[in-house]
């Protein structure tokens, strides 16, 4: 008697999962040797009404889904390039999304007509200048780089 496709499916699924878990535990040690990372903070335009934001909403904003602040001001997202270490640190420790997944989410939206890419800036200085001068702007910098002309948003 032949196995049903459902059982075959379940067994091949299990086998592949097992192989993957093994491979990833082996490679985990190598990938995990990393140095201490700087603390990143979320910054917004000084006229922003909020001084804190839920992590879920922040993810929706950085994921380019949520386009408006509660007061109807358009959201304007600024990011550093994918290859900049601060972007990866912010993405992993503050957003808690892998930067690769963030890029994939943007690509899926842009190439199906459902969204747009955020604006990429080339340095923390440009990030601070753009966020300070653009109403509705949101971005991120190292905690040590914050200037008085932007507002720091706490995660709630």
């Amino acid at each position, binding site marked *: 008697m032949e196995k049903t496709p459902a059982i075959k*499916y379940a067994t091949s699924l299990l086998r592949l999962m097992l192989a993957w878990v093994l491979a990833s535990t082996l490679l985990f040690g190598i990938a995990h040797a990393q140095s201490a990372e700087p603390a990143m903070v979320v910054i917004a335009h000084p006229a922003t009404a909020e001084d804190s934001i839920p992590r879920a909403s922040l993810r929706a904003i950085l994921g380019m889904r*949520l386009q408006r602040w509660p007061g109807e001001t358009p959201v304007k997202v600024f990011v550093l390039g994918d290859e900049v270490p601060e972007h990866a640190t912010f993405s992993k420790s503050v957003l808690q999304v892998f930067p690769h997944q963030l890029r994939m989410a943007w690509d899926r939206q842009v190439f199906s007509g459902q969204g747009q890419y955020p604006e990429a800036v080339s340095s923390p200085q440009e990030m601070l200048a753009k966020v300070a001068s653009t109403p509705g702007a949101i971005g991120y910098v190292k905690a040590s780089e914050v200037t008085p002309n932007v507002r720091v948003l706490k995660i709630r």
Partner: protein
Amino acid sequence: MYVCSRYVRTTYRLLLVGLVLSWGTTARALDLLDGDFQLHGFASLTLVKTTDNNFFGQSDNQISRDFSEVGVNASWRLTPALQLSAELLSRRAGGTDDGSVRLDYGLLDWTPLSSEEGRAGIRMGRIKTAYGLYNTTRDVPFTRPSIILPQSIYFERTRNLTVSADGAEVYLERYGEGGTLSASFAYGQPQTDTEAAKVPLVGLNRPGSLDSKLAPALQIMYEGAGNRYRLAITALRLDLKYDPGFGDILHAGSFKLTPLIFSAQYNDENWSLTTEYALRRTAIDDFGPYFYNGTFNGQSYYVQGTYRLTPQWEALLRYDAYYADQNDRDGKDFAAATRLPGFTRFAKDWTVGMRFDVTPQFMLRVEAHRVDGTGFLAAQDNPNPQALRRYWDNFMLQASFRF
């Protein structure tokens, strides 16, 4: 007339390629109006070689260059609640697609409801069908896990029926502490007016035409822990009628296709595990004695792992299985009834592949398939079913570019 339309088509394609390449030289996208207007695009070229059978052109023991994709899209955020987007696509794929430029999507997205906790809105126009995890961007190489998507669920030969629909889609999203819950319901007219849509259902050289009722499509998705988990259910209903042509041996028959897809993906920092399972109920009625009428439950699934060895290199391993009829998995009953090979009713495909991102804009991919069965092959590239071979290998090499 034919020459004229061909001339126009070639000109359009050249313009599209020119546009992509001219932006390519500056290697950046176009942003106007402070980024509220964005222009993006992609182009790919694939070489295909098979040990038997033809896939994307004449590939049997020779190299086919008949698979290429070129797309350009524009999006304009008019207000925070309104976005206008459109994409032009030219796709060549052996005998199933000739590269003529068409509107891939063109829509107005209106989001009247928006708060910190979620949003809701409607998209109107030509909308990509939310089908499984990959369908909405199925022609964009960078968003795919491999050169070709798992054929058991994302058939290349019947793509036209599910790629997009003209109508409206209502969507709802809720951003919770644990993750994002989203739902979409679309109601629209699928594209049935091409040979590419007709041939996989009724076969080659049929004089009649295919028409579809408005089709509903529902998808519910949960993306948890910052997209670590992505779970989705998709349900679709296609109700198609065949209108026989002059001297047609087929009667006015109908197809009712109701695929149900379960999708799950787990993403870690360097690896992803993805699986999708589809139950495809197909009812074929009233075509008369020269057709394989009946009701079948088709079954498809794949299990796929990808591993990012370095930020630039990614390896892929996948097992993909397709059965046209779960009560006749080896196709014996079908073969007895039609005298066609039984192995045309299934396909089991082991795939290994490698992706190399030379730069963020330029990607190279190589992929090998070992396939048992010919269930997903296109009749346009394989007109004689008796010439098909059950066991075959497929090697592909792809270069793609985006901006």
